[in-house]
């Protein structure tokens, strides 16, 4: 806590069931993204780059892989004497039984002891399933300058889409006057990004009260924020203009990967001043064979290409055989497309093998085809 007196809690509890088979065995934050990353690398790297020392990761679904992945925090430089990443699944305590996290706020409530042990002045609450780069330290400065109890990061969305989001209505000075969850007739187009900075003392009191409230669903959006507004606390909106993407569905996960191919993409992962850190695979540089063709692609080390690739993202250890074609697709780590197979508008899950001469996906499908099981071919 030596750097800025703010502790971060990442809400990573959701199963992410809309990601279907991708989250059968791993929690959503551990899902692979962008060739070499996992989704949770983004909030964790943002924390590390924003000089936050202590990060709690709140999880309850399939946390084994996530736990071993973040343990130690060394991958993000969160491993100095005063820093660390801690996975916090629900646990039994001396005065309470073992219970699941009943809501986003409850996940923090059940870890008040953890937060207290670091005695932070501020607490940053994040969700673990968004792709973006953001300097939380600047947001904290805004929170301090505004002398706020709660600062909510917001971004303008097209008016047409506003009914899909939690919308923050603000006055001229950016003070939040009203919060509407998925309003039919939105009064503002500022959508909450699910990124909150609270002054810990204030939040702590509110959480203790929320735990005792039998009518509460123990959720930040439904309960805690409305309560803050009712009590006249100072809530301010912090505008964020950069790239931000919720990757909660197969289509949006695919889209976010495809965004990396766009030369005008705002999410610059090649910025030495704001690196996204991740595990390092011991793999050779990517091999592009003598008869291969690579036409607009994002490829990471350990990939092996003999066939042709068009507008696709290839993850670590993925393989494209001779004469195979991969078009508008995402090959997750270890995915194999054998000789002669054709993959179009598909997302091929980790270690899945598409057999010889198979055809998967189609150029005019409405949704992206998720291939989560081996497809048997002519081999």
């Amino acid at each position, binding site marked *: 806590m030596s750097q800025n007196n703010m502790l971060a809690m990442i809400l990573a509890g959701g199963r992410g069931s809309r990601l279907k088979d991708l989250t059968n065995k791993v929690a959503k934050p551990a899902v692979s993204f962008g060739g070499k990353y996992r989704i949770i690398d983004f909030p964790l790297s943002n924390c590390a780059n924003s000089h936050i020392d202590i990060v709690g990761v709140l999880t309850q679904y399939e946390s084994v892989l996530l736990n071993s992945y973040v343990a130690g925090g060394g991958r993000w430089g969160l491993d100095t004497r005063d820093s660390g990443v801690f996975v916090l699944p629900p646990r039994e305590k001396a005065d309470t039984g073992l219970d699941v996290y009943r809501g986003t706020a409850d996940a923090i409530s059940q870890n008040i002891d953890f937060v207290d042990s670091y005695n932070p002045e501020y607490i940053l609450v994040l969700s673990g399933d968004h792709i973006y780069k953001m300097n939380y330290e600047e947001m904290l400065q805004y929170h301090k300058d505004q002398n706020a109890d709660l600062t909510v990061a917001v971004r303008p969305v097209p008016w047409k889409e506003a009914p899909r989001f939690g919308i923050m209505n603000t006055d001229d000075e950016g003070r939040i006057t009203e919060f509407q969850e998925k309003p039919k007739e939105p009064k503002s187009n500022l959508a909450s990004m699910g990124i909150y900075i609270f002054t810990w003392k204030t939040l702590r009191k509110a959480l203790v009260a929320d735990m005792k409230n039998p009518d509460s669903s123990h959720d930040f959006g439904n309960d805690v924020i409305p309560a803050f507004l009712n009590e006249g606390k100072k809530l301010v909106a912090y505008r964020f203009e950069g790239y931000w993407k919720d990757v909660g569905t197969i289509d949006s996960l695919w889209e976010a990967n495809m965004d990396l191919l766009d030369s005008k993409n705002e999410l610059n992962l090649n910025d030495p001043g704001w690196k996204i850190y991740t595990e390092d695979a011991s793999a050779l540089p990517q*091999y592009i064979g003598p008869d291969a063709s690579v036409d607009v692609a994002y490829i990471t080390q350990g990939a092996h290409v003999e066939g042709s690739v068009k507008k696709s993202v290839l993850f670590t250890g993925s393989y494209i055989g001779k004469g195979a074609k991969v078009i508008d697709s995402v090959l997750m780590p270890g995915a194999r497309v054998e000789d002669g197979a054709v993959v179009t508008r598909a997302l091929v899950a980790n270690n899945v093998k598409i057999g010889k001469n198979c055809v998967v996906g189609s150029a005019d499908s409405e949704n992206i085809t998720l291939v989560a099981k081996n497809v048997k071919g002519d081999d």
Partner: protein
Amino acid sequence: MANAFGIVAPSKRNIHVEGMQDYRPLAAFSFLGRYRIIDFPISCMSNSGIDHIQVYVTSNPRSLAEHLGSGRHYNINSKHGKLQLLFSTASSENDIYNTDVRSYMDNIEIIQRMNQEYVVIAPSYMVFAQDYDALLNDHIESGADISLLYQRVDNAKEHYLDCDVLTLNKQKGVLSIEPNLGTANNKTIFMDTYVMKKDLFITLVKEASKISSMYTLSQIISEKFNELDVRGIQHKGFCAAITDLKSYFDANLELIKPEQADQLFNGDAPIYTRTTDSCPTKYCDGAVVRNSLISNGCTIKGTVENSVIGRGVNINEGAVVRNCVILAYSDIGKNVELENQVIDKWAKIGHEAKLIADADKPGYIKRNDVL
């Protein structure tokens, strides 16, 4: 855990790679895009259960010290393992005094304090994969005093010219260690890799330093064939000696071939290196890439053929790169044409430059150079 500690020997004094070596010791040379030459001996030792490793360096230690760090990326245990960087100041008088024996003598107390019974010594100018645990076991089983690793090659007339060759008798006993004079193609190349007991090693080093300040470890061993049982153990698989720019260039390009690379890189014994957390590589509209190894963090808009490209390299529109080894963070400008070149780190080639060299004599562009 192997009952041996490892030594990665200092650069051999008769080896000099034009240009590149002015900036870093051979051990720290970038290799195959994302590696450095020293990653090979250290990873193999670590994979073989050797977790006390000494790396000897005589000049320009900066890049090596930075790259090795605590050794954590080599999977060396931070509590019961150790990766040491040992310095020995090079003699300014004459390079002939800068022997391996001198480096060992400068650090003899540290060597004496090692707890392991055996020592495995590997060179820092060769690229090969070796299971050192198996080598140590072979050595112990044979009952020999010293075992030397060798490779049979069929191209020694033009390659391995700065290496030594072994003459072996039928029982694999070593009869001589002599420079490769390029007299024949079929030779038994000494891979500068030794296994022996630590105590014997110390005795030999001390004795060598008493006889002459120009003596090397292989020279003192050569004097002992009558007293000691010195045997050869054969290595099979890829082995490259980096002794000049041409051999550096050749070894990189040779390893583009998956069947060659497979001999060095196998899943069970990975080669580790320090990550720089660079993002994947972007292939833009108009990129044409064939038969190449490309590291992460590059942006490719031009043509790349038969080349090894380091991290964070930009290949701009219309540029054509053929048979080249391009080190990290170089920028190849629009319509530049490169053939048979080694481009050192951070170089910037612009102005539609055309640099074409012969494959037998690759060109070299200095670090940070702007053309």
